[in-house]
């Protein structure tokens, strides 16, 4: 597994990227409490599609906004998962690192797509890494926030869980079709 912070340093053109990402996160406009910038965007995510505006406003303060530079990892393979990511802008590659340091690309995630949703269920290690292809903005939703939502606002929590189950079911179905559809 490559280490982005120092690998980027080896590429002369990218030495400032991790630093930019760090300061970018510090000085990004603080979005919390009553300021709801992401409500409209969250509505586009299939997991939150059945939430009404009032419910989305309650959900919005639980969302973390992160900025990544090209080459930065959103998460890495084998690390315990704690959050799901929704891509707001930019592109993310899902890659599996090989033994010789080469990466096998599995998919590319576009804006409005989401990834790492299994981390909302448990903290089993990530099965692949997610790497920003370009400057990317992502929204992160933390598992423990979902668990707390299930306790304090069961109506919102159960809607999210139901949509999450549907999405995972659809992905399983698609996976089965890919596996067995070709052989028929």
């Amino acid at each position, binding site marked *: 597994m490559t280490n982005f912070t120092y690998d980027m*340093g080896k590429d002369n053109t990218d030495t400032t990227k991790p630093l930019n*990402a760090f300061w970018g*996160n510090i000085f990004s406009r*603080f979005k*919390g*409490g009553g300021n709801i910038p992401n409500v409209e965007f969250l509505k586009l995510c299939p997991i939150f599609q059945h939430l009404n505006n009032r419910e989305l406003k309650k959900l919005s303060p639980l969302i973390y906004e992160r900025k990544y530079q090209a080459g930065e*990892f959103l998460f890495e393979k084998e690390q*315990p998962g*704690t959050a799901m990511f929704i891509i707001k802008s930019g592109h993310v590659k899902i890659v599996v690192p090989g033994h010789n340091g080469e990466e096998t690309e599995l998919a590319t995630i576009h804006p409005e797509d989401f990834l790492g949703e299994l981390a909302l269920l448990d903290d089993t290690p990530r099965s692949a890494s997610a790497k920003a292809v370009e400057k990317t903005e992502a929204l992160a939703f933390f598992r423990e926030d979902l668990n707390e939502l299930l306790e304090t*606002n069961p109506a919102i929590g159960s809607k999210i869980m139901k949509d999450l189950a549907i999405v995972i079911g659809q992905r399983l179905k698609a996976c089965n079709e890919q596996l067995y559809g070709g052989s028929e």
Partner: protein
Amino acid sequence: MSNDSGHKNPETNADIRSSSRRQTRRIVFIVTAILVVLTGGFLVWSLRPIILPIIIGTLAAYICFPLLKLFTRAGIPRGAGILLLFGSFFIVIIIIANQVGSLIPDEREKLILKTRFQYKLNERYKSFMGLDDAGEGGTMLYRYFSSDFDNFLNSVNSFIRLDNEERGKFMKYLDGYNNKPPIPLKYYEYYHKNLDTNHEGTEDKTAGDLSGKTAEKDAGKDEFHFTVVMNAFKLWIIMPFVFLFLLLDNGEIKRFFVSLVPNRYFEVSLAVFDKVDKAIGNYLRGILIECSLVGVSYIVLFSVIGFEIKMAVMIGLAAGMATAIPIMGFGIAFVLGSSYALIAESVSSIIPFITSHNLIIAVAVVVLMVMVLDNGVFQPVVVGGAVSLHPLVVFIGIMGGSMLFGFAGLILAIPTIVVVKEIVTTLFRELKDYSLI
């Protein structure tokens, strides 16, 4: 030659530039970190009088978080829940301040307590050593070590006896002063006996003269008390606000700190925040319940063995609070309980064989019973075995806490150490899980 150097130089220059940029960045980070640590340390030291109210406000908020969740779950709007908790917090503070204020002995009661304590101590000493009223006779043990024992008792007497000013006040209160009832004559007899013990029999005459002088001092003392109360109010007014703002916080503080974390540590920081938050919350709520249970046990059992209710409540409260410190709580309960047993005039216990002579044994039994209850029931059920500190850490923590913040530091030192320990261990565990260290 010139061509060669023209090819090589740009790469070399770029390498040098990159390396020097990295070095500059490292120096900037180190200098910034040192400055932040020094400024933080300076601020903590300068603002230490308000640290304690902040800690207590934070602890109270931590204890109330689950209640707020419960309200939200029950359909009570968050704002109404916060208002309810803040109102309850204020009422509880006022009740506690009022009750504790009424329990703390006033000047007259302090004088009586000191007089009683000295008289009873000397009386018990004589009876234990087998001495008669004239100080003759004595057990075999006394005959061997009489000078050592007497010297020790004299030093205790010189520590607890009333000084000139106090004697003057005692004489004033004897006939009723400051809207307080007169001191019972029985205690005046004790007072005289104590004077004989001190070999200062003539000083009761000067006491009458001193009463005039102390009256002049009282006006100045009242003013001093007012200033002390105002200063304490100015410092402690911050506590309810810390409590309120922490309850009002809807994750903004956490989000701010997470926003400072580099992307590489984002997920691990969320996991650490969550685990530390849960562990600290559980520990603090557990310790609060344990302290309350231990305090109530002392109040009930001390009342059963015949303590005055007021004294049982006072000792129960002090020992309950001290339960936050391992071992110390039992020590405080025993010292306070046995001190009271020493001066107890009459014991009205529902257990027939407990008298003022064997009350100290009953106190020891009560402390043992509460110790067994705490170790066998309260701690395993309420707190769990998660918190274990090395005795040396406990000792240093207590000493350091009391040196910095007095009695409150003594009580809060161990919970603070537990919180710091939890943060450090969780951080390292998670960093290892994420293969970051």
